[in-house]
């Protein structure tokens, strides 16, 4: 893994949790939905990465899930945010906004006035 890839991976990894929580925050979702969205956004390359993350977030009390029958295949887990999860996500959102501002400010070509 080259240095560039490594840095890119680390950057993605940092926002992964926030993105997943935000997707789930938009309504009850099933892992495949999350994966689809993440793949569209090129935030995630392989599906496998999602499952350990979901399990960890669930164990932290941020997520809850319910089993739902599926027409094809085994029953699926549908995830929702818990109240703690919602709180957590909104705080992350603030942090993200601050980060975006900070990054924009530091990386813009405007000379320091």
């Amino acid at each position: 893994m080259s240095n560039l890839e490594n840095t890119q991976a680390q950057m993605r990894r940092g926002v992964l949790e926030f993105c997943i929580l935000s997707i789930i925050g938009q309504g009850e979702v099933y892992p495949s939905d999350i994966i689809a969205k993440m793949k569209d956004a090129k935030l995630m390359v392989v599906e496998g990465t999602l499952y350990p993350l979901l399990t960890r977030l669930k164990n932290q009390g941020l997520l809850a899930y319910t089993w739902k029958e599926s027409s094809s295949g085994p029953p699926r887990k549908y995830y929702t945010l818990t109240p703690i999860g919602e709180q957590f996500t909104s705080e992350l959102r603030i942090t993200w906004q601050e980060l975006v501002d900070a990054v924009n400010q530091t990386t813009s070509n405007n000379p320091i006035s």
Partner: protein
Amino acid sequence: MNKTVTVNIGGMVFHIEEQAYDQLKKYLEAIRGYFTSSDGRDEIIQDIESRVAEMFTERIGTSRQVVIATDVEHVINTMGRPEQVAGTDEENSENKSSSSTAGSTSEGRGYRRLYRDPDDKVIGGVCSGISHYIGIDPIWLRLIFAIAFFVMGTGLLLYILLLVIVPKAKSTTEKLEMKGQPINIDNIKKTIEEEVEDIKTRISGKRSSRGGSSRIANFFEAIGAIIVAAIKFFVGFIGVIIAIVLIALLFALFVTLLGMSGVIGGDSLPIFLTQFFLESWQVNTGMFALALVVGIPLIVILYRIARSLFKLKNESKLFNYSTGILWIVGMLLTIWIAINISSQFRNTNTDRIVIPIVQPQSNTLHLAAMDETFSRMEDYDDSNFSWDTDSWGINSDEDSVSFDDVELTVQRAEGNEFELVRITTSRGTNRKNAELNSRRIVYPIQQNDSIIHFAKSYIIPKGVKYRAQKIRLILKVPEGKSVFLGQEIEDVIYDIKNVTNTWDNDMVGHTWTMTSRGLECLNCKLDEPTSINYNYSGDNDENDFNDEKVKVRVNGKNIDINSEDDTINWDNKDVKIKIDGDGVVIDAKEKK
């Protein structure tokens, strides 16, 4: 044409080609290797498996039935390589990467556990397991065990013991632990690959080269299977026998209870207990409690045996709780009854009555025991009480119980007259009750001229309970007057003090006169005035004494006393020697 394996993935059944199966298995094992159970490993694997199942279902569609290698490859590509799967979890990946680099050197051969090695075995893999553990070639251990086999079979015993105690290394992790290799993804992968290879070679008919002496292994495996089957059969057989015994016990308990409650006639409990010791409610409650305390464990054991015999796995919580609670209830009831019974012995009452007797014409009072006939009493062996089992429910007049807790002693009278004192003690819930209990027992004393007849036992009539009643009789003899102790009175008298320290059973049959010193036997003719010369004159002389029954031999080393009887008993003017079950008494009497 390819062989397929049927697998259950995420609760769905798939037919999967063997090669594809190996690949998938390796893949999942590899992912598993990245997580610890605290990460929620099982749940992650389960989620991934569910997703895999879904992807397989999508790909197979309706056109085909079998999952093939390309499907697995697709799944792996979609899911990501094991290190990618774990890669998201930053802490995790850091941990793993550090441990996989540093671990191979620092963990090295540190953490290892004793397992049996199923991949390298002659019989059970015990020797190879130990060899992994201590790091020597298994051939030496096998040699040692083989030699030890001929030393009283200790090798065999030890081997069987180890075979039973030491677990077999089943999972990849255990196999790595056995070899002391760090558990990281590379090693797991390697081990699984080795295993798969091994299975493949075995399936294709070529025996695993690692097995080495595989024929022997086969032979021992067969023998082992036979032994295990035999043991299982034997255990099952014993289980059946125990079950039969338990059923019989339960049945007996049931019948006994019915008997107690009067449903079935019979006298399973001694009438003494039911009529003369306990209240009827105590009997009923006590029986119920005992049935619970004894019966519940029997039922539980029976249930367990039945379950293991019929291989029932699911444990009934309701059964466990209800039997547990019933048993505790039984225990508490038993304790309560015990406390209740003991409370009926709490208080003591003592009555002291002077029984009027007619002074004899002569100066001698004859003491005799009363015929048993007056009360139909019978001594029941040596036990304290006796009961008449025939009489239960037939003739209530006969319902009585007798106790021989009666003691008669002789003392000096203050005045000039014979005097007889009866002291009765009893226990009860309170003083009043105790007094009642002592008054209501029957103890007859009859006097015919100069003969007083004492009963050997007192009687508790129907309706009165045994509350540890005792009767103590004191006959006071004035100085200068005598008592004659009849033979049968021996059962009644107790520890009568006398001048010669004669024991009770030797006092009977003689007339004893109250003198200034105490009771003295005036007509005691000692059988033969045997004088034994105990003076040992030393050297090699041997002093022997022979009498018809007793031989005494004194020599330089010791004194031998032999008797044909069970006891040795001399009593003459100066010396008393008595040897019997109670001990040895040698008493030099004081010269008066």
